[in-house]
């Protein structure tokens, strides 16, 4: 059971975890944690897995097997530089015209969950997150780098910015008071 716990934690962390940290998280003794982690290291070596557990002086890390190194690099490249899909471009555009915008607003506008797309736009440095104290939530907007890439000084230089930023259609969708029929929307 301790082995499963350590395995799960090393996967979730994706980076080295010290023995001390593992002891805290699993509420187990140091000797037990080390014994279980070492057993896991052996287990990963013995089955021909695409993963390895690496032991450093006093920490453990789950990593990809050296045999698949080039693939790992291909994946890293893919995450940052593959062509943006249409849903991604739409989300980016909404962040530009409507930003700073909350995730909930983005999702109302697009009608689908945007978690994975936002994660990718953040990694690519196209969108940045900030904490809005008034709304008490995270808001998203396009980065300065992206605005410069478009050849603009500020985002409000986008064509029809004023008209589209507060377009009537958006207000109807996002402002339930302006649209009393929205009360009929069933809770999920």
């Amino acid at each position, binding site marked *: 059971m301790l082995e499963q716990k350590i395995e799960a934690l090393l996967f979730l962390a994706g980076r080295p975890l010290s023995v001390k940290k593992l002891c805290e998280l699993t509420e187990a003794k140091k000797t037990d944690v080390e014994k279980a982690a070492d057993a896991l290291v052996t287990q990963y070596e013995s089955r021909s897995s695409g993963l390895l557990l690496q032991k450093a002086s006093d920490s453990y890390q789950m990593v990809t097997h050296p045999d698949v190194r080039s693939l790992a690099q291909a994946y890293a490249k893919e995450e940052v530089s593959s062509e943006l899909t249409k849903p991604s471009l739409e989300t980016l*555009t909404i962040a530009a015209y409507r930003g700073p915008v909350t995730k909930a607003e983005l999702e109302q506008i697009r009608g689908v969950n945007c978690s994975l797309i936002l994660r990718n736009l953040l990694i690519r440095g196209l969108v940045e997150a900030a904490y809005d104290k008034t709304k008490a939530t995270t808001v998203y907007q396009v980065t300065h780098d992206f605005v410069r890439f*478009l050849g603009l000084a500020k985002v409000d230089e*986008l*064509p029809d910015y004023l008209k589209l930023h507060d377009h009537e259609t958006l207000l109807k969708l996002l402002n339930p008071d302006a649209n009393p029929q929205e009360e009929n929307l069933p809770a999920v």
Partner: protein
Amino acid sequence: MHHVKVHTFEGPLDLLLQLIEHEELDISQVALAHVTEQYLQALEKADNISAEDLADFLVVAAKLLLIKSRILLPQLAVEGAEEATDLERQLKIFKEYLEASRNIAKIIHKRRFTFGRGKPAMLIEEKFSPPEALGVGDMRELFLSVLRDIEPVIALPKAVIEKTVSISEKIEIIRALILDKAIVSFHNIMKDSKTKTDVIVSFLALLELVKQRTIVVKQGALFTDIAIERLDSPPAI
């Protein structure tokens, strides 16, 4: 006719199933005919049915009506057998999935949740990588297309049967139809129909159009002419 207390219901099939199970009957044509009146009463008392859900309830009401009339007046049972067995099958299938959804609720209740990782495992350096060949003009076009996609969502609550005809008025129409005198009055409306079967089939067709939200049925009072109006906007989604 005794009144049956029903719990909150989510849709017409949910309501039907509750009524049949309350009577401890198996799902059959006879059982459906048996609970028809209770179905209409429950519908009349319900005040939380939105105008757009009403059409779905009415379609089932029409089928119940057909089943009941087939049992009361077997001489009508020339056509429409398919529609009648449809509802029986539909309800049986609905029951299967309803029970499955209860099993799923139990599984979720065990809280055997699993977790992925929010970020990639390796340190992927945040590297500015803009989309190639994206100009401000493209972005304007994209934003306009997003707005166009929203239009039907906003229109959705409007693309329903108008509330001008209250639920109880509509229920009266249907209930009356079950009684003989209603069938007579229906003849007046459908003067061109040659047989009684024609009348029922026409009525079902009418309700199907109501369901598709292409027309609005209005009736000032019971037994007055039913006015049929075409809705301007087609259903949104």
